[in-house]
């Protein structure tokens, strides 16, 4: 069910806020401790927090469960991350209007690309004009 969960905040920020919250409670709480608590590789977490790595649905489901997000909230967040990643590549100069290319570039399963694509079309956040895709 679509709850009241707000997925407009990027998951990266949710992680940053959670890390800040834990550090506020315990000044010695390290990134390494945070990565252990999340069950994720330290360098992967560091890259995600810096915005150097996209959060895949697989990672988001694992981390979301550790952060005690509800299943519905996790799925909404996965969808939002995928949609935002696609809008990001559409703006790239080397963009190719091809779901298979998007899937490779983002490391995203093709079906997730197409689900996100359809959502963006429904919400009119993306306009398909043949090989010219643009945001309104």
């Amino acid at each position, binding site marked *: *069910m*679509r709850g009241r969960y707000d997925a407009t905040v990027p998951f990266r920020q949710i992680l940053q806020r959670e890390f800040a919250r834990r550090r506020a409670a315990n000044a010695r709480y390290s990134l390494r401790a945070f990565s252990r608590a999340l069950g994720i590789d330290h360098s992967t977490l560091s890259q995600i927090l810096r915005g150097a790595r996209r959060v895949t649905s697989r990672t988001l489901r694992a981390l979301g469960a550790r952060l005690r997000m509800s299943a*519905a909230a996790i*799925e909404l967040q996965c*969808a939002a991350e995928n949609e935002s990643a696609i809008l990001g590549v559409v703006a790239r100069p080397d963009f190719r*209007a*091809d*779901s*298979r290319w998007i*899937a490779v570039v983002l490391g995203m399963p*093709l*079906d*997730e*690309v*197409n*689900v996100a*694509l*359809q*959502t963006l*079309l*429904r919400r*009119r956040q993306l*306009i*398909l*004009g*043949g*090989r010219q895709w643009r945001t309104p």
Partner: protein
Amino acid sequence: MANPVTRWQIVARDPEAVTAFYRKLFGWNVRTDNALGYRVLESGDDRGIDGGVWPSPPDGHNLVQLFVEVDDVDAAIARATSLGATVIVPKSELPDGDTMAIMLDPAGLSFGLVATRNV
């Protein structure tokens, strides 16, 4: 134009499994050599129409849609809307050239409008 139904589409939460099921059951050919990686199912027979499988969101429903060919998608949307339909996916020109829209009829069934690429 007589507005024939030219394509059917299954929308499924597990499109790979659905595709495999029909391929095994009927021996249909599956093609994905298009810009959306869209799974086209073909019987190889002149009779009947071919279809395809599209992924549904995890919280979506499994369903079947029919695609009706029209001359002008904008005009068809306007006419459908005047008869009580609503637009789900607005007119979109796909990378391979077809123009389509997804509508909801007054009974709540979704269907597609498609205009094939001008030759």
